[in-house]
């Protein structure tokens, strides 16, 4: 059974023998960039598929992706890069750098690995450093930042501070949502006590409050029945609390 490296050796050979050798090699280099920093994202795959749609696939994209997923850094891949470098022209270099930038950014982030690969591909095409920065700005509207030094703890300190701040923001959003949900439930309850619809106007709410207050006011109850008096007092209190709750939201 062939191992992963055998599969990619076969892949480079298939790319060399392909009748669409240039187009397939370009697609393969873009897919290599997409796979390099982890599992292939569907958006990155889609971006590669959108390139060179007028050229048929000599080697299916799925085969190339599967081979790189098994071995992202095959030993004989420089053969492919050497061929690509031999095929470069000024126009194709710009087009290729645009493609690589689009593929790297398709999953919504440019990882440190992709930054290393982008400067490698830029040097492979013998492009000046300013070209990558210029095309990055043109394609994404962002400044290209060279790969960070992961041997410097300051990188991790900054990344951890960002992650912590993001987690704090997410927790605050969740707390806000829970608070809003509780407030909404309290408001529904208050409207139920006053016997009005959720979309009642402030005038209707105030009218309901006045009517129920008159109805359940202790002074308006028959004074002989202690149980009825207590029940009316409880209803009166509930009506006043509901009214106070709705006033907090400026509903009344």
């Amino acid at each position, binding site marked *: 059974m062939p191992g992963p490296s055998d599969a990619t050796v076969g892949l480079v050979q298939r790319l060399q023998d392909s009748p669409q050798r240039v187009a397939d090699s370009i697609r393969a280099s873009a897919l290599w960039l997409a796979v390099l920093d982890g599992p292939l994202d569907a958006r990155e795959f889609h971006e590669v598929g959108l390139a060179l749609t007028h050229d048929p696939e000599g080697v299916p994209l799925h085969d190339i992706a599967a081979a790189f997923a098994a071995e992202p850094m095959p030993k004989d891949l420089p053969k492919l890069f050497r061929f690509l470098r031999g095929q470069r022209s000024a126009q194709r270099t710009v087009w290729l750098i645009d493609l690589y930038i689009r593929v790297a950014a398709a999953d919504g982030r440019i990882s440190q690995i992709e930054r290393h690969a982008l400067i*490698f591909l830029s040097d492979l095409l013998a492009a000046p450093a300013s070209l990558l920065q210029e095309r990055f700005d043109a394609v994404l509207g962002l400044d290209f930042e060279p790969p960070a030094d992961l041997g410097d703890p300051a990188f991790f300190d900054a990344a951890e501070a960002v992650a912590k701040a993001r987690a704090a923001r997410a927790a605050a959003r969740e707390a806000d949502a829970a608070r809003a949900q509780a407030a909404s439930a309290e408001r529904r309850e208050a409207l139920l006590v006053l016997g009005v619809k959720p979309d009642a106007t402030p005038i209707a709410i105030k009218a309901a409050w006045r009517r129920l207050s008159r109805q359940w006011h202790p002074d308006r109850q028959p004074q002989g029945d202690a149980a009825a008096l207590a029940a009316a007092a409880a209803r009166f209190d509930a009506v006043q609390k509901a009214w106070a709750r709705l006033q907090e939201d400026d509903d009344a």
Partner: protein
Amino acid sequence: MRDLYARLGLGYGAEEPALRRAIAATPDAELARRAKAVLLQPERRAAHDAVYVVARGLRDWRVELLMEDGAWAQALADSDLVRPDLPPEPLVSPKGAGARRSWWRRWLGRA
């Protein structure tokens, strides 16, 4: 990106005891500080190594494809993993690292 493993005289994937011994033995204080803060913390080391493996592979391909004089290789000449042909310079402590002394320590230092 500085090649901490090479600067410590170790290979990629060195075990933690070997790392500790190399850190204790290195005369470069800044290198020891960085290695302690990055390579001795498992999560940071995993993130570092994921990038290191690719950058190291690309560096070898740069040599194979005769790309040492590429534009980005010139721009990032202080990176061990882009310019393998240059001797690594010693790491230096960041400026202001010793500036957090209290006023009386500074006064004692002057005296």
